[in-house]
């Protein structure tokens, strides 16, 4: 079933891949235009009408999504060459960027493809484990009240807390590659976030140790794409500078104090 002939169509060129490690290929689909479409609603139309422009019967294009309001990060993909969330990618805006009316969808290139536009973002969650991105309050004893938080600190921490682990910063980073071990802006910023927390800072030295090995903070090349593509406007480059300073101080302390006593 194809779109009715008398409506204006939007053409989607989609990079597809049938499974991990399989070869990728392109397919084009037409979606009838309606006001206020987003990329997800177009993908839903294609799932319902998986017929290519050439009239060939295909399979529904697979993608990952959850919240549909740009707070979960799951539907991140490369849209017209730029990484962003497909739920907040509005067709009326996209069509202004591309007067020809073609929208290109690709999976993120820095994460292994599961299928079509769906990628495996585990590397980001493993990075959070590496830097111990949590507040260690587990235990059976009463820890009492937490430390007081200043308004200034709260302000900074709120901006960092908005991270939804979507992967935009890593996709746009020229230093973060599919085959290397760079930890990237997302985890660096979370290390700063938890090092600023009154209780979370007890793990600060361990976070910095993890951050100073291969793939750590020093592998940043200061291209600063991360901060520009971040949909949550997190001050990622300031986080990188802050962790850079903490690492410098930490290294000097380690040099003069020696390694910590076990």
């Amino acid at each position: 079933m194809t779109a009715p002939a008398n409506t204006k169509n939007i053409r989607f060129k989609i990079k597809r891949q049938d499974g991990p490690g399989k070869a990728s290929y392109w397919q084009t689909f037409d979606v009838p235009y309606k006001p206020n479409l987003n990329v997800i609603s177009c993908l839903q139309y294609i799932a319902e009408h998986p017929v290519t422009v050439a009239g060939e019967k295909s399979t529904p294009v697979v993608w990952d999504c959850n919240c549909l309001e740009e707070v979960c990060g799951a539907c991140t993909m490369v849209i017209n060459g730029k990484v962003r969330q497909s739920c907040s990618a509005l067709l009326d805006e996209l069509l202004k960027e591309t007067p020809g009316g073609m929208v290109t969808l690709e999976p993120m290139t820095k994460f292994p493809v599961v299928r079509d536009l769906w990628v495996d973002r585990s590397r980001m969650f493993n990075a959070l484990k590496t830097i111990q991105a949590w507040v260690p309050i587990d235990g059976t004893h009463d820890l009492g009240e937490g430390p007081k938080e200043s308004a200034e600190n709260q302000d900074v921490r709120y901006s960092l807390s908005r991270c939804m682990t979507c992967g935009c910063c890593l996709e746009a980073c020229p230093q973060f590659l599919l085959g290397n071990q760079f930890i990237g802006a997302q985890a660096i910023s979370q290390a700063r976030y938890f090092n600023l927390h009154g209780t979370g800072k007890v793990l600060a030295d361990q976070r910095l140790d993890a951050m100073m090995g291969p793939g750590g903070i020093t592998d940043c090349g200061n291209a600063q794409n991360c901060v520009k593509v971040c949909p949550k406007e997190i001050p990622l480059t300031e986080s990188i500078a802050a962790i850079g300073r903490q690492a410098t101080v930490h290294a000097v302390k380690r040099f003069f104090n020696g390694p910590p006593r076990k």
Partner: protein
Amino acid sequence: MSADASPNAQAPQPSLLAQNHFLLRRLHSLSGIVPIGVFLIFHLFTNFQMLVGNFQHEVEFIHNMPALIYIEILGLWLPIGFHAVLGIAYTLGSNPNSIQYPYMDNWRYTLQRVTGILAFLFIFVHGAKLRWGFTFGGYLDTPFYLHGPHGEPLATASTAIALQHAFPWVLVGYVVGVYACVYHWANGLWTAAISWGLTLSVAAQRRWGVFCVGLGLALAVFSAGAIYKAATYPVADQQREMIRLMEAGRTLPAAPHDKVLELPLPAEEAHEAAP
């Protein structure tokens, strides 16, 4: 999203490079600033004295510094080699994407890697030619002589002959090489302040950026002055002939001016001795 499969796998002992990863990266940054960057400032300021000041006197001062060879090896060649080897290795591990994400900072990033490689090639050719006497199969026959056989000052004339070389690529290569060095140093100084954690906020990074741009422009002006002077300096026929004869008659390829310095003649005698 599936979790990582092997949290309990026995990790092998990390390599020496991996154990000192942070130190190596920070030494890479430091070696670019001190001594290489500081040397670049002095070098380009010295060159500028071709236009304003006394270039001959400055070059003589440098060539007469005590323990010059140790200063060169420890302060220049080793840091440059270290910075270059690590820099090229880091560059090979990156994937510049300035076409896809054409932000100014991203172009700055890509240009830093391009100018790093250009600067390394240039510094190698520059040092190999002028310090070690390589001629690159005769294509770069531009010797540097501080003095003529009887103490005649030749520093500016040698530089001028080199930049007015019959092959314009000597001048083009020189200009590209010098400006690659200037960009690489000014931009490196800007990014180093982030890497070391000096400029924490975007506003501080912008302020430091103004300083780095100013420094880069100052160095660019110094170089432009020197290049202008060398490219327009009227080389006297006798200076040209003197250099040609010295070039033809020399037996040792390295640093011929050092030997000349051993028997300097008074200035009036030197004028009479000139053919």
